[in-house]
């Protein structure tokens, strides 16, 4: 009972608090919060919104998993953003240059993406392990550098081709596409969605059923205890960040293989930071991250309906920001409350066993 309360209470509290905050912001502006909520919910049934939510949710899910792998070890991979963009770009270039049988072609593109993501994460990993540079700073710098490298790669000097007034990479042949499930007018669910779910299962299995997962969590909980238990801290840092980078390398692929088939200057960005938010919301738990990703995708996609009733769409950004901030605060409050409750319980049990009143004060 308490376990469920501990897990579910904070996100619910956070969402309610964020909703209240947004309601106040809307009321100040003279809009009706209820109308805003109604159009957002009804929007899900319209057009391609439901499918978009699932597709975007899957992308956010993979991004959240990438961040969560680092979080398990108290490593903060803020570089997911750069890793996924560069990986998508290089994978698109490789996919466009190759012509292989179907299936194999797709697999090669996915492997290239994972490899590039891991490569880009290896710089912060090595700097952290061997030079003690904090991974946050180095991976932020890598994000910037990734932007430069991408601009160079898809420029016409690199691998780009001019199409209309947009530069893009060579389109990937149909053999490399990841087939989706079409719902006619409601859109097409990316086939990658199922791969994302499989990745979530693999993540859960790795964490709870393998020695590596145990070492990962142990290093996160207490590096000294893990070291005493024979875990090589340096190796763990490198492996964890590389894994996180490889996962990040897959974030851009659902759209690349399912819809765009090429990487352009206008390809989406910002998923890395969403991944951080989603991982925090889901407490690094595979199911929690999935719920967080879907919530995020719902907020993003339903926001489009707000324009129709004259509410600024940006209210959703405030909602998302305040959810993240209030969810971490809520977890902290609930953790402290549970700790105090447990202390009281133990004290009561001790009193019952020994029959003497526990000492007051110390």
């Amino acid at each position, binding site marked *: 009972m308490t376990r469920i309360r501990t897990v579910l209470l904070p996100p619910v509290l956070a969402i309610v608090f964020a909703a209240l905050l947004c309601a106040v912001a809307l009321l100040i502006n003279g809009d009706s919060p209820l109308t805003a909520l109604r159009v957002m919910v009804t929007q899900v049934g319209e057009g391609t919104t439901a499918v978009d939510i699932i597709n975007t949710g899957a992308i956010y899910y993979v991004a959240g998993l990438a961040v969560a792998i680092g979080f398990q070890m108290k490593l903060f991979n803020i570089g997911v953003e750069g890793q996924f963009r560069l990986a998508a770009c290089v994978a698109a270039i490789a996919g466009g240059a190759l012509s292989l049988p179907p299936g194999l072609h797709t697999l090669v593109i996915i492997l290239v993406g994972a490899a590039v993501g891991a490569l880009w994460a290896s710089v912060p990993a090595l700097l952290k392990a061997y030079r003690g540079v904090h991974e946050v700073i180095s991976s932020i710098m890598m994000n910037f*550098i990734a932007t430069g490298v991408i601009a160079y790669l898809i420029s016409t000097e690199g691998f780009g081709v001019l199409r209309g007034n947009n530069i893009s990479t060579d389109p990937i042949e149909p053999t490399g596409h990841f087939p989706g499930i079409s719902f006619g007018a409601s859109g097409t669910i990316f086939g990658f969605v199922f791969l994302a779910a499989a990745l979530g299962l693999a993540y859960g299995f790795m964490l709870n059923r393998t020695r590596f997962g145990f070492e990962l969590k142990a290093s996160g909980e207490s590096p000294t205890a893990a070291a005493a238990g024979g875990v090589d801290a340096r190796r763990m840092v490198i492996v964890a960040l590389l894994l996180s980078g490889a996962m990040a390398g897959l974030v851009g692929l659902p759209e690349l293989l399912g819809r765009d088939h090429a990487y352009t200057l206008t390809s989406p960005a910002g998923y890395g930071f969403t991944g951080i938010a989603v991982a925090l919301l889901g407490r690094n738990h595979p199911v929690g991250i999935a719920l967080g990703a879907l919530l995020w995708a719902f907020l993003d996609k339903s926001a489009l309906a707000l324009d129709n009733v004259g509410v600024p769409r940006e209210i959703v950004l405030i909602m998302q920001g305040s959810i993240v901030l209030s969810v971490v605060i809520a977890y902290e409050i609930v953790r402290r409350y549970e700790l105090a409750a447990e202390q009281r319980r133990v004290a009561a049990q001790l009193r019952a066993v020994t029959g003497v009143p526990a000492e007051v004060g110390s």
Partner: protein
Amino acid sequence: MTAVETKPAAPVPQARNGRRLPGWARAAIVVAIGVGILAITTTLTGQYQLTSSGTTQAAVRLLLPILFAALGGLWAERSGVINIGLEGMMILGTWGAAWAGFYWGPWAAVIGGLVFGALGGVLHAIATVTFGVNHIVSGVAITLLGMGITQYLAQLIFVPLSRNPRQSPRIEGFETFSIQPLADWLAELEGQQRVLLSDAAGLLGGVVSGLTPLVVLGFLFVPVSYYVLWRSRFGLRLRSCGENPVAAASLGVNVFTYKYLAVIISGGFAGLGGAALTLNPGQLGYLEGQTGGRGYIGLAAMIFGNWRPGGLLAGAALFGYVDGVQLRAGGEAVHALLYATSILAVILAIFWAARRHWRSAAVALAAGLVVYAVYWVIPEVPREFASYAPQLVTLLVLAVASQRLRPPAAVGLEYRRGEGD
């Protein structure tokens, strides 16, 4: 932001060599070496833009927001709170400055930026100090929130004025001024094309011309921060909260109050950085995404300044300078900077070898050789890379110097009232 894993190593005896140079002398030597290297590079590669006063002037403008962000980072981290939300507070500052500046002029813009940034600081303090949330998590959340609030407010307030949700109407900026007759005299000397002398004159000339009151304020805040944090009772207490809050509390220091104040001041500085962007003579007004990660760069500048005011000024100057070079002269000049970097690395290697830090010396030498090889192999740095030269420089500097940095001992750790009783 701890750049270094604190290792429980034996404390290094400070009195290794009895004649330690005072800080100003060391800074002067570093500056002299820097000017010397640039002069040699300019002469050998013919890239006169490297030391022109125009480049320095651009560098000062680019340095200012980073300097403010770095000062913000310094104040927070000295009190033991990592502030990665600087970026978000800066974004809030850009909006606040544009809004206040549009209605009441440039000084109001400065105040507006300060207040909005400080509000972000208040949020960060509530999350980290009162609730003990992980500092980095809170900072990232505040950056997200700052972006959201800013875009919402821009949509509400600026759209009726500028018809554009991503931009504010143009605001009034500060008048620029130069320090005369020094600026004219230096410009004359720069024109004479004497090796070293003209280079130094060009570099200095850019610093004393085309100034705004905000630039002067920014440069003044560096010694002021030093004086307050290292030479006043308030600052010593504040720093003790960052080194050992339990000990500070046992001496009657109210740790929470000091941390709150430090983080709010930190947010205020970040907001000033946002105001500096909004009041930049080249682009007066708020523009969505104009911070471009400068809050993070300020943090990095502070780290490689070893959590000290003078050092962070050097870090911010390096960034502003590299940025100024690439903006004014592009890939060729950045290419010449590679040459300068390799000279610097060799000098560092010699310096560390003399101090018998063999490993550091080897790393520096290897880095220098790699950079020189890159310089030799490619004829020109592509434009796309050149614009990210500052970030590359940061990575290199951190990789070479990170072992010798010392962050505040308790930075990033949660402190709760009554700990250690």
